[in-house]
């Protein structure tokens, strides 16, 4: 089997009485573009902070590139943007990036290109504390690109950016991902994950709710509307059906949430075998958004 780039095993972390992460495990493979999706305070930033040794977990462990030891060497191969951009305020953009390159053990030759990619070439000699929020964020993205990292970690990279910059950053992520770089993108924006990611991990209150390919997650949740003369019998029968994750009665119909592969013919056949003839049958694929919202209201 392919070697995972990142293995997270049973990570937990609390801040006082608040459990920020609760037995969180995950594997990331080379080339994955993983979206870590969750509302504010769900543990996304805590997870990424632990992976970059900014935060220490209460229990559990993680392996970068299959290695347990010398994690700082692994971090040299990772470009990361955590929560908010941090740089030396009195240094220019170029000098800040030189420091990053020095720490990473990378040359200075990629600095110009990185600044070009985020559109900061003109202001490269201005001090960091003269930058606007959006420029700071873009500089932080530029810093992650130095030394051609094997993994990119981005925590809400489009936070505080104008629409033009958002498009720029998203294209950049796609471009980097197309070169085979593994990406971990934390976001509370569904749309962002849907547009840029191949895989998704959904977090809420420090627990991993769901993980898989973005398209599988889409397929896996089928909303089926059915109607019949005897609605009570329909409800009972539906409860016995395979793949039914949930069954809700809504006004004049019953809504089934299916979690497996099936199709209309099979559903129809099942109800006929129970002696129920459907007067209405509609299959609706759910958008990731309603899936996400469902997860959060559970």
């Amino acid at each position, binding site marked *: 089997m392919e070697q995972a780039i990142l293995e997270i095993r049973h990570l937990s972390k609390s801040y006082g009485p608040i459990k920020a992460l609760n037995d969180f495990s995950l594997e990331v493979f080379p080339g994955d573009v993983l979206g870590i999706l969750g509302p504010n305070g769900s543990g996304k930033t805590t997870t990424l902070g632990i992976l970059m040794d900014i935060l*220490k977990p209460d229990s559990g462990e993680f392996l970068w590139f299959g290695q347990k030891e010398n994690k700082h060497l692994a971090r040299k191969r990772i470009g990361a943007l955590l929560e908010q951009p941090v740089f030396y305020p009195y240094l220019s953009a170029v000098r800040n990036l030189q420091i990053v390159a020095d*720490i990473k053990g990378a040359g200075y030759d990629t600095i110009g290109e990185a600044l070009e990619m985020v559109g900061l070439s003109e202001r490269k000699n201005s001090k960091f504390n003269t930058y606007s929020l959006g420029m700071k964020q873009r500089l932080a993205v530029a810093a992650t690109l130095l030394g051609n990292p094997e993994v990119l970690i981005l925590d809400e990279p489009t936070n505080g950016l104008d629409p033009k910059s958002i498009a720029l950053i998203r294209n950049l992520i796609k471009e980097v991902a197309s070169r085979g770089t593994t990406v971990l993108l934390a976001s509370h924006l569904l749309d962002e994950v849907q547009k840029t990611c191949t895989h998704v991990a959904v977090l809420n209150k420090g627990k991993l709710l769901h993980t898989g390919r973005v398209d599988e997650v889409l397929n896996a949740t089928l909303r089926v509307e059915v109607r019949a003369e005897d609605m009570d019998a329909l409800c009972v029968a539906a409860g016995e059906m395979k793949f039914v994750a949930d069954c809700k009665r809504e006004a004049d119909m019953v809504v089934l949430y299916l979690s497996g592969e099936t199709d209309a013919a099979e559903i129809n056949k099942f109800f006929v075998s129970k002696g129920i003839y459907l007067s209405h049958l509609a299959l609706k694929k759910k958008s990731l958004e309603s899936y996400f919202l469902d997860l959060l209201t559970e």
Partner: protein
Amino acid sequence: MWTLLKIDFKKYFYSRAFWVMLAVYFALLVMFFFGVEKIVNEALKSSSKSSPVTIPAFSIYAFPYVWHNLAFLGGFLKIFLVLIVLYFVTHEFSDKTIRLNIMNGMSRTQFIFSKLLFVLLLSLFSALVLLVSGFVLGMLHTEELTISMITQKAEFIPAYFLEVFTFGMLGMFLGFLIRKPILSIGALAIYYYIAEPIMAAVLPDKISPYLPVEAMGNLIDVPNTALMQMFGVQFRGNVSLQDAFICFVYSVIFTLLIFLIYRNKDL
């Protein structure tokens, strides 16, 4: 280590705050060294007027005593040097730039070591100012100069270095512990001027010399001057290895405590 120095060089070399603070410290030190004789002699002149015995004029800059005298005086200004240490250690936390270092691949050990190097270099700088000032002043104020007179009491230079370095390590420890610029400067001032003097007064005489600031102060005793000799007061005119050892042990303890605290701490 060279990589760490290269990284830190950029942090300090292009910082205006660093140069301003270093220049102020340098100016204070040099002014103190070069101006102190005048102040002492003026004081003596006015006191000798009322004194029935005449106090002989003397130079505190004469070899070999200049090393001891300047090392003793320089010790009073070490708090200014530690302000530079505190400023840069605590700003790594308040600006959160320590995260930049760690997440791009510096280990926590390397980060702490880089700050230790910073304290070491600042202390070396201070000792160098002492060396050059002492040499210049000694040359100007010594009659009948011989080489052995210059080197005789030169042990006070490394002793001075150790005193400043140990104090710098105390500052670095407080910086890592408290993380907030103003609070840590306040904590250092309270400890240095209030807490330890009280402890030294309360604790039995056998223990109080082992307190950190006391130990640093003991490293270089009050110099013997003609005035003091007249009154029959005799201070230690050399450096005791035991005091040096205590200071060294404190530097090691401060370093180990920082490592211990940061093994499992969020940044």
